[in-house]
């Protein structure tokens, strides 16, 4: 029997306190009645009321959701293509550059991606007259570009673990290669595609630096709005917004974890039953 690792458990407790105390403090202060964000002035839900009555905030949320849905969907399609190509097509022209292009946006600092996109859009507008105005389209294009590589990473990792024998079996049974991809490979990696989409969606909902460079007049996303408010200091309604975000995300992740866990257990159970039936 191992000794109880007291030191490690202590650090773990400290670490989780470090992770969650700031978030909990923010949630408690969202119910603060005082206008001063850091001085307690009794329990109140008025910041939540003012949040829902804030037209600007709701418009920004709506714009962010629109951009996130469109960009996550495009990023998932492009990113999945790239992931399958890198995992399955051993050799094609320009493969080295392609794999470089797929990793570079992951480590490129946001500021540099931001200014390069802005320079690109401004020069493009001058040369061909498009995009005449920056806004929804330019933000979405930029979001697709940096979030598709995350999808690629997830899909590629899943592909390299996947069992190729099913694909080979389908091939032996006379399927055309692209049918194999459509009927076998895609269903097998569908959980990875789904988590890629969710990842792209969250990244897009959260992105502020690149968005601030590619936005135009009248296109304020939720992170941009928070960014401009927070730069001026701590405000109670942002506390309320943060609390709602944490709750929505927390419940979402917990439910997703529970569903995946249950699906996995059921699959294990089915596999066991199948083996028993064979004996």
């Amino acid at each position, binding site marked *: 029997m191992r000794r109880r*690792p007291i030191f*490690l*458990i202590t*650090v*773990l407790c400290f*670490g*989780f306190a*470090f*992770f969650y*105390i*700031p*978030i909990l*403090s*923010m949630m408690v202060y969202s119910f603060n009645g005082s206008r001063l*964000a*850091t001085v307690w002035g009794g329990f109140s839900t008025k910041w939540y009321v003012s949040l829902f009555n804030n037209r600007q905030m709701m418009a920004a949320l709506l714009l962010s959701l629109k951009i996130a849905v469109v960009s996550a969907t495009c990023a998932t399609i492009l*990113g999945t293509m*790239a992931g399958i*190509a890198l995992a399955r*097509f051993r050799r094609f022209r*320009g493969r080295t550059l392609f794999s470089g292009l*797929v*990793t*570079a*946006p992951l*480590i*490129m*600092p*946001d*500021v540099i991606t*931001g*200014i*390069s996109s*802005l*320079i690109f859009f401004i020069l493009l507008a*001058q040369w061909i007259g498009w995009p005449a105005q920056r806004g929804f389209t330019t933000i979405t294009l*930029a979001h*697709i*570009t940096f979030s*598709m*590589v995350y999808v*690629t990473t997830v899909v590629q990792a899943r592909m390299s673990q996947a069992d190729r024998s099913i694909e080979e079996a389908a091939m032996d049974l006379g399927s055309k*290669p*692209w049918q194999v991809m459509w009927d076998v490979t895609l269903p097998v990696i569908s959980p990875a595609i789904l988590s890629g989409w969710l990842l792209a969606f*969250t990244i897009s909902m*959260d992105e502020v*630096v690149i968005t601030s460079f590619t936005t135009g007049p009248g296109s304020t996303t939720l*992170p941009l709005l*928070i960014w401009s408010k*927070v*730069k001026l200091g*701590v405000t109670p309604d*942002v*506390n309320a917004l*943060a609390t709602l*975000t*944490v709750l929505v995300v*927390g419940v979402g*992740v917990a439910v997703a974890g529970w569903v995946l*866990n249950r699906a996995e257990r059921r699959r294990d159970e089915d596999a066991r039953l199948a083996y028993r039936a064979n004996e």
Partner: protein
Amino acid sequence: MRARLAGWFHRRGWSDLMVALPYLWLVLLFLIPFLLVVAMSVATKTPTAPPFSFGGEYPLVSFADYARLMQDDLYIRAFLTSIGNATLAMVLCLLLGYPMALGLTRVSRSWRNVLLMLVILPFWTSFLLRVYAWMGLMGKNSWFNGLLTEGWNTVVPASWAVTSIPMMNSNFAVVLVMVYTYLPFMILPLYASLERLDPVLDEAAMDLGSRPFRVFLDVTLPQSVPGIIAGGMLVFIPAAGELVIPTLVGNAADPMIGRVISDEFSVATDWPMASAVAVALLLLMVVPMMVYSHYQARSEGGER
């Protein structure tokens, strides 16, 4: 015509398209904009719109901005501040993240899943709001600052007593928030590499008479080097180019390099200078990136 198209699609078109579409996208919207920045860095600033030109005379390009980069105190200090803050954040993440990752491998299976989820959960919430949470804690009137002030005042002699601890708008605040936001990047690769270790090796060293701490130094630590490097680079690289954290909690008089790039671009509208600083930042990060990809390739090679 349609039949021929369908034939082409079935034979090789589908696979060509699968490569070509994402390839074209990345070339058009990532590579070309990036090359524009590189070209911009050797242009000259002009008061026109857009504010640059490629000189009228031979050799058309100007390295004046790079020369300024090497001489002007502002840029040198910004680079040093960035490297210093990022290195400090990386080391602190390692010191806190390593025992946490090791601890995660020692708890029971059901606990481990819950705790891992708690490590990942902040990833899914807004980065901006996590930085913001610390603004609330570090402010002068906050309960956290009050607690620390009280602690400080009871420890030090009365003449050193303070009414609050000035944490906001300092490099201390930047490093603290960086550690907070990037700690999961350190814990997850470390956990992945520590989880793969065979506990039999530990037991063998134990049986041969090593004390637990020696076992850690001689057996566990050397085997987790790839995880340490991966985690370290995953913290260092984004931290060095960080813009949001220094803008919100940092000291404006002592900016980091991301802030300098953004200000040169938007405030001074000096595109060539902003681009030169950006290229210099990338050159600085090439070394850590190569180290990272070297170890990454090696650890992937080891798995096969």
